[in-house]
């Protein structure tokens, strides 16, 4: 399966989680971190979060908005939304394939 979020190495997975978090609207770093942790039950450290945010911003998948106090919100760009949509469709197709095969597997 071809990754849709390219060249992010170990940060591909946090990057996808961040894109999903931002898909419901702009959020600053702390809000993203707590949203991802609440959604997955897995910790997301500040170092990993900002390594992924920096890469996503470099590739134009997210953009920073004007800071509010010292917090800077981020939002999905059009490209980011398209890539996230493709990735999620691909994951859905993959999950459906797996479930179909499980359904056919002899018990």
């Amino acid at each position, binding site marked *: 399966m071809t990754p849709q979020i390219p060249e992010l190495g170990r940060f591909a997975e946090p990057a996808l989680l961040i894109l999903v978090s931002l898909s419901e609207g702009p959020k600053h770093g702390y809000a993203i971190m707590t949203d991802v942790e609440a959604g997955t039950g897995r910790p997301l*450290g500040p170092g990993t979060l900002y390594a992924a945010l920096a890469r996503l911003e470099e590739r134009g998948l997210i953009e920073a908005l004007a800071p509010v106090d010292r917090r800077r919100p981020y939002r999905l760009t059009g490209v980011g939304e398209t890539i996230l949509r493709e990735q999620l469709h691909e994951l859905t197709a993959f999950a459906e394939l797996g479930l179909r095969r499980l359904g056919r597997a002899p018990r």
Partner: protein
Amino acid sequence: MRALLLRCYPARWRARYGDEFAEILAERPLGPFDVADVVLGALDAHLHLRGLGAASEHGRGFAMSLRIGGIAALFGGVLWFIGIAGSSATEFDGLFASLALIATASLLVAMIGLSAFQARAYPRLIWLAFGIPALGAVISLVGYYGMATVGDGPFLGDVSPWYVWMIGTLLMIMGSGLFAFATWRASSLSRGAAAVLVAAAVGVLILVPNLMGVVSFIPEALGPLASIVALGAFGAGWSGLGLSALRMDRAALAAIGGASS
């Protein structure tokens, strides 16, 4: 500590993200997991800005995760039991002693990787749980060096290297018990495994004076058996925590991880 962590990042990175990153670090208590994650993130930022990190085609980047902690706990628990049981049953054996040292290092990594949620509820307890065995690991290493060089002879003053080794091991057990207690209270991983680890740590600490002949509340014939059960439970408790972390890591993200890695 927060200012020091921020200083680990390159100046160019701080100019862009420094303010908001400092704000995030101030938002909640930092435990060993967060500190390790930030240090690895800073290392990644240095490499990334030089074009050597995960921005390159084959770069992998660095990140602390529940997965690393889970694997370290699983293998650390098994290795620790083999290393300590083997060391106790034989004269100084380089293989078993080395296994025990590797296991101790692995369990320290496990404490870092598995401590994220507990540290938010009990930051001081988690730092204590990490600090005590970290000190113990250094002491064990000194004891190991002593056993390898002078054998059973006097090492530090009149103290034999075995006693030095034992003090380090007991500190590891004590810290593990505190870590398991915080985990049990926070319900962040398997509470059953955490309870086994607490019970094993308390059991070993109670058994040690008996084994050393200071007190004798357990019949001599039962002492070794009780020790093996307690040491086995200690290893099993750590491995159980590791398994529950790996299960948690995989449950929500198996499909995402499989598709994006």
